[in-house]
């Protein structure tokens, strides 16, 4: 059997391991995300979802493993090449991580300005254009992040993540801390933006409604490993006891909450 005809996945993780001190947070993560798809990663708090993404972004150096984008291993690349790959990646942080010393327009166009793809004069107009895509008025550009509500901050963070037109975008718990309606609105914006860019998306969430809205593929991480991958539509009746317990939010099942560790 040959499957050489199969395309190289946009993102491929193999045997990713990372320990902090005694604690083995990632214990051999394997994951494929095909180009143009939207993958949601599910898992309890502290299961290593954010650490996985940070390894891909180069913010945490894994102890072992392979992180391939378009078939090329980031971890064995010279720094300059790795930065060039990083230029094509967008990231929405769990709590927004907007720069509070800069006005919104500079936040949104930060990457374009850093890469000198735009002048400061043009950046305001560009910011207004991107803000419109996330449903914010151009006047928001002159405010500072501290002056915005939580939902607006999420939108600005989303605008910042997509402004440089990345071809892979990561979303770390984009709807956590928002009310359900705002959550649904942000999910809708994410789906629209990813579709408009034609990008590959990887989202972390533990909100099932959100997972079904954003993802076409889903993966579940538990104890530092991916224990299941499949279509997002089947979440809740996948036949995998762990995933089904998580998706239905049941107390009894194979996943035991470890309150003390």
């Amino acid at each position: 059997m040959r499957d050489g005809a199969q395309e190289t996945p946009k993102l491929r993780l193999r045997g990713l391991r990372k320990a902090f001190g005694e604690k083995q947070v990632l214990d051999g993560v394997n994951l494929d995300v095909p180009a143009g798809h939207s993958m949601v990663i599910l898992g309890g708090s502290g299961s290593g979802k954010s650490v996985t993404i940070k390894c891909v972004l180069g913010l945490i150096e894994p102890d072992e493993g392979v992180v391939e984008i378009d078939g090329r291993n980031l971890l064995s690349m010279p720094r300059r090449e790795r930065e060039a790959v990083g230029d094509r990646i967008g990231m929405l942080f769990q709590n927004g991580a907007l720069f509070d010393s800069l006005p919104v327009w500079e936040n949104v166009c930060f990457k374009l300005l850093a890469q000198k793809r735009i002048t400061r004069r043009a950046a305001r107009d560009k910011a207004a254009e991107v803000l419109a895509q996330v449903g914010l008025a151009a006047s928001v550009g002159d405010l500072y992040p501290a002056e915005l509500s939580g939902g607006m901050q999420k939108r600005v963070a989303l605008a910042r993540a997509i402004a440089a037109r990345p071809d892979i975008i990561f979303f770390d718990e984009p709807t956590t801390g928002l009310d359900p309606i705002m959550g649904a609105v942000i999910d809708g914006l994410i789906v629209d933006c990813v579709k408009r860019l034609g990008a590959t998306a990887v989202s972390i969430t533990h909100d099932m409604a959100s997972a079904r809205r954003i993802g076409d593929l889903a993966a579940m991480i538990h104890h530092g490993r991916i224990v299941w991958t499949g279509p997002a539509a089947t979440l809740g009746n996948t036949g995998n006891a762990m995933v089904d317990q998580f998706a239905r939010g049941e107390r009894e099942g194979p996943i035991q909450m470890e309150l003390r560790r």
Partner: protein
Amino acid sequence: MGALLLDPLAALGRGAIAACRMAGAVALFALEALSHLVRPPFHWRLFGRAFVEIAYYSLPVVALTAIFTGMVLALQSYTGFARFNAQSAVAGVVVLSLTRELGPVLAGLMVAGRIGASFAAEIGTMRVTDQIDALRTLSTDPMKYLVAPRILAGVIALPLLVVVADILGVMGGWLIGTTKLGFVSAAYLRSTWDILETIDVVSGLVKASVFGFIVTLMGTFCGYNSQGGAQGVGSATTTAVVASSILILATDYVLTEMFFAQ
């Protein structure tokens, strides 16, 4: 019994190891920051902001400190020297103490309190809210963006502050000398000027530059490496101020030895 006796020793050893580790980490951090100063691009806008913060906004505290110090110096040395009938040395003592020693050290300590604390708090907050990670994902090296411009600003701004402190300190001494101690204004200024040599001023300005480096380095280092939420930022701020104050005083001794020891 033995364990009890050895316990303080073990603690001392642990402390020494931690101090060495921190010194190494600070040195590496400083080298990386300096390497960004010679590798373009350089963030002039952020340099300007830090420069204004250090030079302009520290001016009031440094000026007040200098004036009062000059006044006290004149008073103290007058009453002290009266015992040897050496009152005429007051002007010289005031200007030499200020330019060589008190100008740079006091300005350094004031700036350590203001700038060291504010840099550590600002960068520390950026660390614990993922803003430093965000910089990386936005094609920006945080060392180049947050650290290098601030350190350069400190190295340049502190000597300028010290020039102001020297002048105001001498004026403070002159004020007391002429109004309270009975010196003739022209004669006081004449003897100030006569005793002053280039090395007195230059050594003070070199010290100021080094202190500016220490304060901005420790402030950015402690902020950059802070962890663990608001409490972590708080302790980073404290460490930055305490460590830079002690380093200023220790370095001051070394520099004085280099400049003036026979």
